[in-house]
């Protein structure tokens, strides 16, 4: 106890000094003393040291508390000092707690993490939140207030009330109100009216803690309160359900964009040229492996290597596509079933080639920093960035392709050849060259799709096979030769799949969608948006 007192005294000096002098240099000697107290076996001592650390105002205090939470704050047994450390090949790599200077590695037994119990963990969290409440950044303040929802600690509640009085940011004020109202529900001595007001105010909140607090009042002795809680819970559930639907739709859109990316190259080769390319999936796979190789070539460039990978994948898959067209498909025009078989053979060869070159195991592609994370809209609804980017990317590729086909000379020639080869040739279009270029374009887009898919799934030799049937389904469902049909089909199938999933499970949902398409094709053999005009009558 005496030690705690002495510590508090030291702390007092420390803070006064810190306020008087420049805070960065002067207190370093004393913060080390505070750290030394963490060596104690008693959790009470540690609690005091944590308090002291949090209130020290030292620039490293936050980082050290976080390290303590993550069990990265170690006791270096040889030198009897507190250090930072992380696991490194069976031992520990140590760092100075203040300067983070490298202190070399020691073996596993030479250092041990400072142990904390749940009480200390909670204490650290609350301290961090209390500090956060006064953070100049409004977002940080709101996060701190939200993290305190459910607390019953009177000191923290006092701090919240005090902040609320000074708070001029409305969203932060609302967050603090939610926390205070939740506390009112838990408090034993609050009067009925306060609680009824609190329940009313909380009835739109989506925080799970708030919901629990409300449920704890369901056995209240006052019927009016029970009724209020029931209404509030109902409203919360209704809102949650709405956001969950939105979540499902988002996942559906994201799956749809994956399908769109996978199918869009096929929409060119199959849809426009009428070539059944069973190796399409493997062209996607080549794109994914290109991403992997580009990352290997630029080990430091995870943030921007995608910008290299996209054109590289387009060129490589496109080149392979042109080769396939020149050496195989060219001889098989007008014989779709033979084309199907030959390209299937090519897909086997490509798969096996990848197995031999890159091993049959899956390769992982590092997702760049700016693609990870999520846009948290509220506690039950968040949009992950990688899916948002892929939706945007799929739409960009789609629009780009549409522009190429509708606005460029190449696009005009492609459409002409696909509508009537003889007439197009008669008008001086070199149909051979156009065929090769079109096939290369479709294949290149498959490669670009591979870059995007590499961010979502494992890169392995079977990557392409997983998408080939889906891609064909999308193109056929949308109507062959119709890019807008492909877009509609991809998104509607993606959303249908995700809507069915919670009801039936993922595998059954997929089976249902497949059966639906099989039946749909029976009804409308030419898809949702059949091509009109003479081209369709062949």
């Amino acid at each position: 106890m005496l030690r705690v007192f002495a510590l508090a005294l030291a702390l007092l000096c420390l803070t006064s000094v810190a306020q008087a002098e420049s805070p960065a240099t002067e207190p370093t000697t004393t913060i080390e003393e505070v750290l030394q107290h963490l060596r104690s076996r008693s959790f009470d001592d540690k609690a005091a040291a944590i308090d002291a650390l949090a209130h020290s105002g030292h620039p490293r205090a936050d980082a050290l508390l976080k390290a303590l939470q993550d069990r990265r704050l170690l006791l270096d047994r040889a030198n009897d000092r507190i250090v930072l450390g992380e696991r490194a090949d069976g031992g520990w790599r140590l760092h100075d707690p203040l300067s983070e200077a490298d202190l070399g590695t020691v073996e596993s037994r030479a250092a041990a993490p400072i142990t904390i119990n749940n009480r200390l963990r909670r204490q650290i969290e609350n301290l961090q939140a209390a500090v956060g409440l006064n953070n100049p950044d409004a977002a940080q303040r709101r996060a701190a207030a939200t993290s305190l929802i459910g607390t019953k600690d009177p000191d923290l509640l006092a701090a919240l009330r005090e902040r609320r009085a000074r708070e001029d940011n409305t969203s932060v004020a609302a967050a603090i109100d939610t926390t205070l109202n939740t506390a009112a529900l838990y408090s034993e001595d609050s009067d009925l009216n306060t609680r009824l007001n609190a329940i009313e105010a909380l009835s739109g909140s989506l925080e799970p803690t708030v919901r629990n607090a409300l449920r704890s009042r369901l056995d209240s002795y006052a019927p009016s309160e029970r009724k209020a809680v029931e209404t509030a819970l109902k409203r919360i559930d209704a809102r949650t359900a709405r956001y969950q639907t939105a979540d499902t739709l988002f996942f559906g859109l994201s799956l749809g964009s994956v399908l769109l990316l996978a199918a869009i190259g096929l929409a060119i080769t199959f849809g426009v040229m009428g070539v059944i390319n069973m190796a399409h999936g493997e062209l996607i796979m080549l794109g994914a492996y290109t991403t992997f190789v580009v990352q290997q070539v630029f080990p430091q460039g995870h943030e921007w290597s995608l910008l290299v990978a996209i054109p590289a994948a387009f060129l490589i898959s496109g080149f392979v596509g042109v080769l396939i067209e020149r050496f195989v498909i060219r001889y098989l025009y007008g014989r779709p079933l033979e084309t199907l078989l030959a390209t299937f053979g090519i897909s086997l060869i490509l798969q096996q080639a990848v197995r031999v070159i890159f091993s049959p195991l899956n390769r992982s592609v590092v997702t760049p920093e700016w693609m990870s994370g999520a846009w948290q809209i509220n506690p039950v609804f968040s949009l992950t960035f990688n899916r948002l980017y892929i939706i945007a990317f799929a739409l960009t590729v789609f629009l780009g392709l549409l522009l190429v086909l509708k606005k460029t000379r190449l696009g005009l020639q492609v459409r002409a050849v696909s509508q009537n080869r003889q007439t197009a040739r008669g008008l001086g279009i070199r149909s051979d060259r156009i065929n090769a270029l079109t096939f290369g374009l479709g294949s290149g887009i498959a490669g670009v799709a591979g870059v995007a898919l590499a961010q979502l799934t494992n890169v392995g030799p079977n990557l392409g096979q997983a998408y080939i049937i889906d891609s064909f389904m999308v193109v056929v469902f949308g109507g062959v030769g119709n890019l807008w049909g492909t877009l509609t089909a991809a998104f509607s199938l993606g959303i249908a799949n995700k809507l069915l999933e919670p009801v039936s499970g993922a595998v059954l949902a997929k089976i249902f969608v497949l059966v639906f398409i099989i039946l749909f094709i029976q009804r409308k053999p030419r898809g949702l948006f059949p091509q009109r005009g003479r081209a369709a009558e062949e």
Partner: protein
Amino acid sequence: MRHSDLKTALTDRAARWFIGILFGAVALVVLLNQLIPADSGLHVSSYTVTLLGKYLCYALLAMALDLVWGYCGILSLGHGAFFALGGYAMGMYLMRQIGDRGVYGNPVLPDFMVFLNWQELPWYWLGSHSFPFTMVLIALVPGLLAFVFGWLAFRSRVTGVYLSIITQALTYALMLAFFRNELGFGGNNGLTDFKDILGFSLREDSTRVALLIATAIALALAFVLCRYITGSRMGRVVMAVRDGESRARFLGYRTEHYKLWIFTLSAVLAGIAGALYVPQVGIINPGEFSPLNSIELVVWVAVGGRATLYGAVIGAILVNYGKTVFTGIMPEAWLFALGGLFVAVTLFLPRGLVGLADNVRQRLRKNSGTSNGSKGTDNDNQPEASHEPA
């Protein structure tokens, strides 16, 4: 083959050669296995007996596909599904034959059901203990699926690649379904650990030989049947549908009826092949539904040569023998070889090995100056690529 009664189908030259070679080979293998002592160099191991039985099952499957693809122009990429369904029907019977000899010793429920904590047999397993009922099931299940699927597809005139792709989707969907434990067919592991069939242990050499002979008989019967059908008036219409469906329709034929009938028959044959296959290899699992299997089967037929029936048999045996050899000595090369085979056959051998042999024979005949009056081959049966629906 202008005539069309059963007698000609049984006795014409191709049928005599086919049945002769088939039974000759099988008899040779059986004798060498049963009569020659195991330490002799001429002895044929039971492994080879089963391997030959497996090839003959594949041959029957290939013949079934040839019937729809070669003669009717329907490229089914889902014939493996019918094969697997027949196999599962047989597997159910074999599972029930295990009785209380399973790991859990339950006299009624197969092991995997006990493991899943099921209390009683699902309704679709009822009757699976009876062999006659199983025989009916083997033909009925694939046949019914093909009938319903074909009825929907042909009625709405789904043709060409569209049909190929939805048959592929069909087998893919079935594969996903059979992977589920809840479906009641053993999920991922499928049905295995069979003990005996009709009371004879599957481990006995004599049972294996009997299964081989049964397979050979089934193949021979199927060959005669297919030959009879393709030679009949109906067969001519089917081929007319292949070469110009619209023209056949305009001439007044209900083309979808012919297609449906030939497709269903072919599915039944594939189911029988699957049923004979399962007791010989001792397992059936959802992998048999995988689209790759069905597409591999297409290449057997393409390698052998379409629309000859025996070409499909030759193709199935040769490709699978190649697979056995390749996967034995250099496994990683097999897929290269298979892929190369797909490309090479479509580019250079559009009529398969049988077509190649015909060409060689005709050239020899032309060189030696003899007339070709005794033309016994089925050149007129060859599909003309340009007439296939686009």
